[in-house]
């Protein structure tokens, strides 16, 4: 389509092309499947169950459940989860079901363990509340440490960048006004046939972040196009292959499906910031992203998607073949997707505890002070940490009482010899959850609170955080 428009123009393209097939193959955490096991004899009303060690949700009738892609096996965290269970089922493998109930007059059984394959299930229905993001942000990491996120493993100091989605192959990007994609649209799903059953959760059309809710028969699907995955230290997920045909009903749709990677721009965000409001570092085009290198702060950084362009393209070909052979029929939506809704943040009725609320006075000294004086300060002020600052009160290092003891034992004379120069710090508006995570991750017991210019404002200590939690008081509000 893109070529045709370039060479012959929109009018001719609209006449010549009947359908444009789109596709995407990416990690879609909001995925899962409804399973029905049938009744055992004697029967059980399942209250809790696991499949291959992964807990499934059971809040419906006796032997129905929903297995979600991100639920992990507690014995294999970040390695095996609901997404892998779904892939194993689709592969025809046996899975172990273990279920417990409380026993009733009609369902006396309290425990069952059995092995089943997908063929033994009455229904196995993939039902994904949110798939197929119209577009998504790209991610990089400004911290000076590696971070593991749902956007992948991000190297320190903007060392690499990740993005999602297939760019100009993306279904909703080719039908941005949702003219042909709506409730009831028949689609390619995981290697089988599925349907759009509505807008997805967090559907955000006003900002160009539309999403779809989809379902399909798991029994038709293929493990090549539905794949369990794990993002180390973040969680498990499911890669879902989705393909959607877009009938070219008018010239407008011809033009819209002619969209190129050069015309799709997304925000590059710093995922090193542990808050929802992440700063936009720059706008970046898919054409730049797909080149494998993007420019940031006059440096080139490697960029790659976490989704598979190869599989997305394969999906568009398979769908095209199905349509040409008459094995797949297009449907008109019975209802359009909303175009005017927005995605709101969570309403929070209690304040968030921030570093600034719990910080204590920081005890500081200058780099030229001698070790004995610093030791005196530690005793006088009854602290374990001294922050070393310059004349402007900007942080240059940190010493602990242990460092001072060690200096005395080993005969070190000056602070620069013993101080830590790469200090882990926090900003005043970081939440205490983020502080606690830093303390735990780096096995340290205090965090200097600094402003954007590095000036020392105070100190958050692990004692203070423990005391808050230890008192059992509600730390919210």
């Amino acid at each position, binding site marked *: 389509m893109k070529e045709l428009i370039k060479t012959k123009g929109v009018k001719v393209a609209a006449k010549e092309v009947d359908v444009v097939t789109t596709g995407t*193959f990416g*990690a879609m955490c909001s995925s899962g499947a409804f399973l029905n096991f049938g009744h055992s004899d004697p029967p059980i009303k399942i209250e809790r169950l696991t499949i291959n060690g992964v807990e499934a949700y059971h809040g419906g009738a006796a032997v129905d459940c929903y297995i979600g892609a991100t639920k992990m096996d507690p014995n294999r965290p970040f*390695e095996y989860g609901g997404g892998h269970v779904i892939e194993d089922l689709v592969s025809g493998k046996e899975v172990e079901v273990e279920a417990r109930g409380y026993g009733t007059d009609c369902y006396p059984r309290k425990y069952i363990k059995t092995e089943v394959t997908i063929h033994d299930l009455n229904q196995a229905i993939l039902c994904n509340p949110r798939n197929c993001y119209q577009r998504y942000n790209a991610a990089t990491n400004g911290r000076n440490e590696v971070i593991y996120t749902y956007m*992948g*493993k991000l*190297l320190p100091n903007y060392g*690499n*960048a*990740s993005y999602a989605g297939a760019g100009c192959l993306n279904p909703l990007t080719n039908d941005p006004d949702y003219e042909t994609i709506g409730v009831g649209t028949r689609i390619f799903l995981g290697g089988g046939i599925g349907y759009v059953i509505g807008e997805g959760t967090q559907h955000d059309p006003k900002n160009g972040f539309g999403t779809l809710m989809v379902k399909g028969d798991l029994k038709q699907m293929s493990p090549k196009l539905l*794949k*369990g*995955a*794990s*993002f*180390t*230290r973040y969680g498990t*997920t499911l*890669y879902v292959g989705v393909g959607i045909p877009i009938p070219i009903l008018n010239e407008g749709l011809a033009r819209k499906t002619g969209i190129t990677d050069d015309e799709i721009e997304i925000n590059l965000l710093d995922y090193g910031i542990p808050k929802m409001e992440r700063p936009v570092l720059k706008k970046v085009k898919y054409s730049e992203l797909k080149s*494998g290198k993007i420019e940031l702060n006059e440096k080139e950084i*490697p*960029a*790659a*998607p*976490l*989704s*598979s*362009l*190869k*599989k997305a*393209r394969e999906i568009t070909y398979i769908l095209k073949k199905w349509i040409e052979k008459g094995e797949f029929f297009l449907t008109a939506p019975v209802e359009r997707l909303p175009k005017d809704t927005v995605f709101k943040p969570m309403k929070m009725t209690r304040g968030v505890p921030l570093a600034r609320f719990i910080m204590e006075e920081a005890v500081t000294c200058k780099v030229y002070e001698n070790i004995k004086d610093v030791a005196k300060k530690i005793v006088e002020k009854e602290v374990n940490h001294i922050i070393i600052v310059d004349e402007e009160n900007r942080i240059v290092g940190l010493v602990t009482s242990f460092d001072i003891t060690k200096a005395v034992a080993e005969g070190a004379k000056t602070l620069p010899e013993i101080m830590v120069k790469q200090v882990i710090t926090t900003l005043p508006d970081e939440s205490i959850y983020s502080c606690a995570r830093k303390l735990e991750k780096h096995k340290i017991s205090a965090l200097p609170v600094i402003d954007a210019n590095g000036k020392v404002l105070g100190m958050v200590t692990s004692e203070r955080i423990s005391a808050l939690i230890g008192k059992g008081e509600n730390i919210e509000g």
Partner: protein
Amino acid sequence: MKAELKFNNKRIAEPIISTVVLKEQATINILKAHVDETGGKVFVEIPDDKAEHVIKAFKDLGVEVKLEILAEITEDCIHCGYCVTLCPVEAIIYDKESLSVKMIGEKCIQCGRCVDACPTKAIKIWR
């Protein structure tokens, strides 16, 4: 040079490596061995001057020989190419023509950066 020897199930029980050692008078060093339902895999170091004859001898005895494989990508790979951004030595490349990821095993320095970054855990490093 390093090589990976693949034995099928029929050949596992045979003393093939020692046969080749004696036949070619080559000091073959076994770095790693693994046997499972599909057969056996042995990772060896072969003296460079005798490599050609040794490899031929293994092949004659029905052993599959892969050279210089320090790391490989299994068929779990979905070709997202994310590993490419983590490799410090360009041992993994993304071919824009075929939209596929390729591992150049002999370039790999086995740093392991890519291993935990792969969403389908498709990268195996011989250590």
